[in-house]
């Protein structure tokens, strides 16, 4: 990703903003259509939508991995972290060495990248596993390593592509709690893509509902719950009420 140039910043103060952004792939598939999304500093935005609605495309646009074919995408983040659907850990490297990878590629000194890696590893609670190989870890632990790696470059903007989609519900909820804890500590802006409504509601300051392909914004919900959010929030009346509203909006999307 290019370092943000001042001219690129459209919506004043936004870490990330999509202005009528769309993406049509070379094979003619329209993945996204006229999307307007703003992510302010310190804001946690979740995106829900039916599968294949272009959620991943949205993140790839945000990261600059692909270019918008309509409208524009502006980033005002000095450092962007990206957490993929899969942990994408290099199997021949230990946990610590995996977490050091970004610093290594960015040319940080050995000392500095080790310091950041160790800090991030203890932040996700894996200090005892720093020397383990990824394949000896559980799916949830691998995802934590992936999170730790993304945190080492101190991102202002963290993009997460259904990171907990492959995990069981218990692990997923635990990792959601943990992600919010990291969010409180590091104060990054987050764009989090998921197909789980309850996950979207639990994490977000704002929820964006995307339609079926080609994805367009169907609804935007502001989430009133303050942080830190206790795990028990998921069973409160307001929570389920909001989740029902988002679900209803999503049903409209799938229809």
């Amino acid at each position: 990703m290019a370092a943000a140039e001042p001219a690129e910043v459209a919506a004043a103060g936004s870490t990330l903003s999509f202005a009528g952004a769309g993406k049509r792939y070379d094979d003619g598939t329209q993945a996204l259509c006229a999307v307007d999304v703003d992510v302010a500093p310190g804001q946690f935005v979740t995106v829900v939508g039916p599968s294949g609605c272009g959620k991943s495309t949205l993140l790839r646009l945000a990261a600059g991995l692909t270019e918008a074919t309509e409208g524009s995408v502006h980033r005002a983040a000095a450092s962007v972290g990206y957490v993929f659907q899969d942990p994408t850990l290099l199997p021949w490297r230990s946990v610590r060495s995996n977490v050091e990878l970004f610093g290594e590629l960015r040319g940080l000194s050995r000392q500095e990248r080790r310091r950041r890696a160790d800090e991030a590893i203890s932040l996700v609670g894996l200090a005892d596993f720093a020397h383990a190989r990824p394949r000896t870890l559980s799916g949830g632990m691998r995802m934590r390593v992936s999170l730790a790696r993304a945190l080492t470059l101190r991102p202002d903007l963290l993009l997460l592509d259904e990171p907990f989609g492959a995990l069981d519900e218990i692990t997923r909820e635990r990792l959601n709690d943990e992600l919010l804890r990291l969010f409180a500590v590091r104060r990054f802006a987050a764009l989090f893509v998921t197909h789980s409504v309850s996950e979207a509601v639990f994490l977000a300051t704002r929820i964006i509902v995307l339609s079926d392909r080609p994805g367009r914004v169907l609804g935007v919900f502001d989430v009133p719950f303050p942080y830190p959010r206790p795990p028990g929030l998921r069973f409160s009346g307001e929570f389920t009420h909001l989740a029902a509203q988002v679900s209803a909006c999503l049903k409209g999307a799938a229809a």
Partner: protein
Amino acid sequence: MRTGRAGARWPRWVPPLIVFALVVAAWYAMSYLALAPERRFLLPPPDAVVRVGFFDSGNRAELLDGLLLSAQVALSGLTIAAVTGIVCGVAMAQASWLERSLNPYFVVLQTIPILALVPLFGFWFGFGFFTRVIVCVLISLFPIVANTLFGLRSVDESFHDLFTLQQSGRWSRLWKLQLPAALPHILTGLRISAGLSVIGAVVGDFFFRQGRPGIGTLIDLYRSRLQSEQLFAAVGLASLLGLAVFVVFGFVARRVTSWHTSARDSLP
């Protein structure tokens, strides 16, 4: 995989040893019971093979000299093929125009019977060590190139995205991502090629009547002189050479790529 009771109780080396004993017993039975004494040279009993082939110092020296030459030829050929093959594979993975240009010829190399060309090479370069090595290189090059290329290409797209996001260049991508990921494939290629280079050294020998005899030359010689004990000893040594190369590469592959799933079977 399910293991039966017997499999669980016996050490792992016992069943193969039983099979070995059975084969030797069948061999003796063939030599002494099925063949009349005057026809026994078709399958001399194992002890005669060992006695004549290895306990007679003249025969032993001849055989071991031949084995040494063939091993040198095979190893030199394999080394050159490994370096050339990996370099070609990496280059082809870096530039698709290079792959498009070269790939058809590697396939051709794989499909033409190299051994049929040996007389031609001898015609050009003489029947010395150099020509024998060329034969080994040509016969063992393709698996290394193909596996290197396949390994480098097999890296998942999301890993490439990971490196792209950190703006990493071609070299760090190659060193930190593609080559380590390709290593198990490269080692598989090397293992196949190692076997082929032994075949190249031994069978190529059949065409080399001049100069120092390799183990293949000796096999051909003993056959023509009906020295069947030495013939069997030579065939046994050639087989052991192939086996040794296979075992060594298997061992190296397991040690180097213990992180890879295909190496998992060997772990407790």
